[in-house]
């Protein structure tokens, strides 16, 4: 019983706030300081801020503000003019670990939190390599510490921060087959085995330069040019050239300027259209992960778009005569201006609509707008199918209206027949 009381007192003492200290909170994470237009990051955006490109830019900037992100730190407690110290590393609270194995980010007087929160930078190069601050290719986590007492490593706050500076492996098994004004690119979907692949980009070049259809907008992986306007590489000491000619080389660096297609990670093929028959293109594929790291280039394959014959053309080449002329909605929907349904609607127009002013106004309105709508239908088979089904009642209605006397006669005949079949009721 005596020991139980002692244990309870110890627990209460450890749980109670220190007499002179309150607590720290992280109010948010910012890619840019709010004063520079930064907005709070989501969890996904934080992942996309902890990649190789931002690590390299942080390493390059070193003395400047980091290009990774900031913790918005709030302090609630008493203000006694003491200092707090910010560190990044692993096991930094252990006094047996030399502080040089952790990276100091800075220190602040606790009073500076009195009227405001403070933005504390999280440099990725120190997160990846506490102590030295040199970027490495790895996926792991380090811890952000706030020490209230550096000598005793008293931790006022700590939080683990995950990062991934390791680029995915390059896809392999790339094949490229020419199509009509296009190239059909495929690769071995199982060749990139790491988790967290988000999408693949295909890169195209023509005579060493980006192909005419290439566009940086197709890629949202993060390179150092995006982050710090420098072309930096892991382990390199000199800055590179943005979008150099002839940059499509197997295993080499991927440049966004060559990207010509983007597909989900579940796909392992894509058709790249908008190319020119008879012109040779070079093609490579890269994988992009959830942290927006990009793999090196796959093997580079040369191929040339060629004219092809699809089934419709082949059918015609062999003498097939079925046609599919289109004009306006009904013919767009039913495929042929001589289609019986189109004939019914045309007859309905001539007989039922053109015989009175409101009908003629409707026909004029239809002829003004019909070609535009028909164009939409021509471009969308599913819209045509849907309209084919939806217009059936309209066609049937038009047919019934035009054969109205016949229906009256049929109804009259059915009523008479039913009356004749009805058993006579015996009268009392």
């Amino acid at each position, binding site marked *: 019983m005596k020991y139980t009381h002692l244990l309870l007192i110890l627990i209460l003492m450890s749980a109670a706030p220190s007499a002179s200290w309150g607590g720290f909170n992280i109010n948010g994470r910012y890619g840019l300081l709010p004063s520079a237009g930064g907005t709070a990051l989501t969890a996904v955006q934080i992942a996309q801020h902890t990649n190789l490109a931002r690590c390299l830019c942080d390493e390059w900037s070193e003395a400047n503000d980091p290009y990774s992100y900031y913790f918005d730190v709030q302090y609630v407690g008493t203000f006694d003019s003491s200092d707090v110290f910010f560190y990044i590393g692993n096991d930094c609270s252990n006094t047996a670990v030399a502080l040089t194995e952790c990276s100091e980010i800075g220190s602040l007087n606790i009073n500076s939190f009195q009227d405001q929160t403070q933005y504390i930078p999280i440099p990725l190069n120190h997160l990846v390599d506490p102590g030295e601050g040199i970027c490495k290719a790895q996926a792991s986590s380090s811890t952000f510490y706030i020490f209230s007492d550096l000598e005793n490593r008293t931790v006022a706050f700590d939080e683990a921060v995950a990062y991934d500076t390791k680029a995915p492996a390059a896809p392999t098994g790339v094949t*490229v*087959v*020419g*199509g*009509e004004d*296009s*190239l*059909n690119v495929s690769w071995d979907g199982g060749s990139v085995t790491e988790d967290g692949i988000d999408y693949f980009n295909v890169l195209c070049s023509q005579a060493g330069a980006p192909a005419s259809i290439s566009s940086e907008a197709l890629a949202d992986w993060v390179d150092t040019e995006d982050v710090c306007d420098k072309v930096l590489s892991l382990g390199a000491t000199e800055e590179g050239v943005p979008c150099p000619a002839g940059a499509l080389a197997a295993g080499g660096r991927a440049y966004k300027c060559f990207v010509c297609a983007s597909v989900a990670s579940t796909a392992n093929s894509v*058709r790249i*259209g908008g190319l020119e028959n008879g012109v040779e293109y070079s093609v490579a594929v890269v994988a992009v992960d959830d942290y927006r790291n990009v793999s090196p280039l796959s093997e580079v394959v040369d191929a040339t778009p*060629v*004219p*092809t*014959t*699809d*089934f*419709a*053309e*082949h*059918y*015609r*080449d*062999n*003498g*097939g*005569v*079925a*046609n*599919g*002329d*289109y004009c306006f909605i009904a013919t767009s929907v*039913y*495929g*042929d201006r001589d*289609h*019986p349904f189109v004939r019914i609607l045309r007859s309905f127009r001539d007989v039922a609509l053109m015989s009175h002013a409101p009908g003629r106004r409707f026909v004029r309105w239809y002829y003004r707008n019909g070609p535009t709508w028909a164009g939409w239908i*021509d*471009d969308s*088979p599913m819209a*045509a*199918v849907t309209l*084919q*089904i939806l217009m059936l009642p309209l066609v049937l209605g038009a047919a019934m209206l035009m054969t109205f006397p016949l229906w009256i006669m049929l109804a009259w005949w059915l009523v008479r027949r039913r009356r004749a079949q009805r058993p006579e009721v015996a009268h009392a």
Partner: protein
Amino acid sequence: MRSLTVVFALMMFALPAAAQEYEQSSIRWMWDLRAGMFLPDIDSEFGGGAKPYEDIFGSDPKLAWRMELSRQFYRGIGSLGVGADLGFFYRSGKALLDDGTKSGDSTSFILVPMGLKLVYRFDWLQTTYKIPLTPYGKAGLVYNLWWITDGDGSVATWDHDSGGGKARGGTYGYEFALGLSLLLDFFDPESAGNLERDVGINNSYIFVEWTYNRSDNFGDDKALRVGGKTWMFGLSVEF
């Protein structure tokens, strides 16, 4: 002796008494889902000479789906109903190069048949002698929507170089089918009873059906022939 054999066969196939212990509600509707291997008659237009469909898609039949809802308006010696059905058939192949070999581009043919038909089911054996087999027949009109896509997945044009019309349209025709369905209630009368009480399904069947579809705008030379003969298998329910 022959009559004894017939009686014995009827007894063997007869529904267990338990299946009929619950009182069936009236049957109004029938719904079925069926699938079978289908090869459209497109190449028949060429009289055995050219085979453009086979060149690109091959000569093997591929899976086609149909779904049908019918309303029974007569019940006596069998049942008579009118039904509407909707189907889907998709075939993809490689476009051809100038030398006739396959290219990297895909091209596809999509068919959506829609039918309106009379359905007669000779379920007199089932209702009278509890034999779980019901032969049936269907006949009606069918309208087939179709379109062809080119390498980039959009609707193809008949003649690429001259920018001809879009390769899509509709072909109508007629269709009849003969089939045989097996009443599943026979195998598990208790579950069948629960199914009726809980969700209102009176009977459920598996069936096999042979379908003849002639779709060529009733002999129009300019029609794309999209009919064919098919064995289909499926599941149906009466409710």
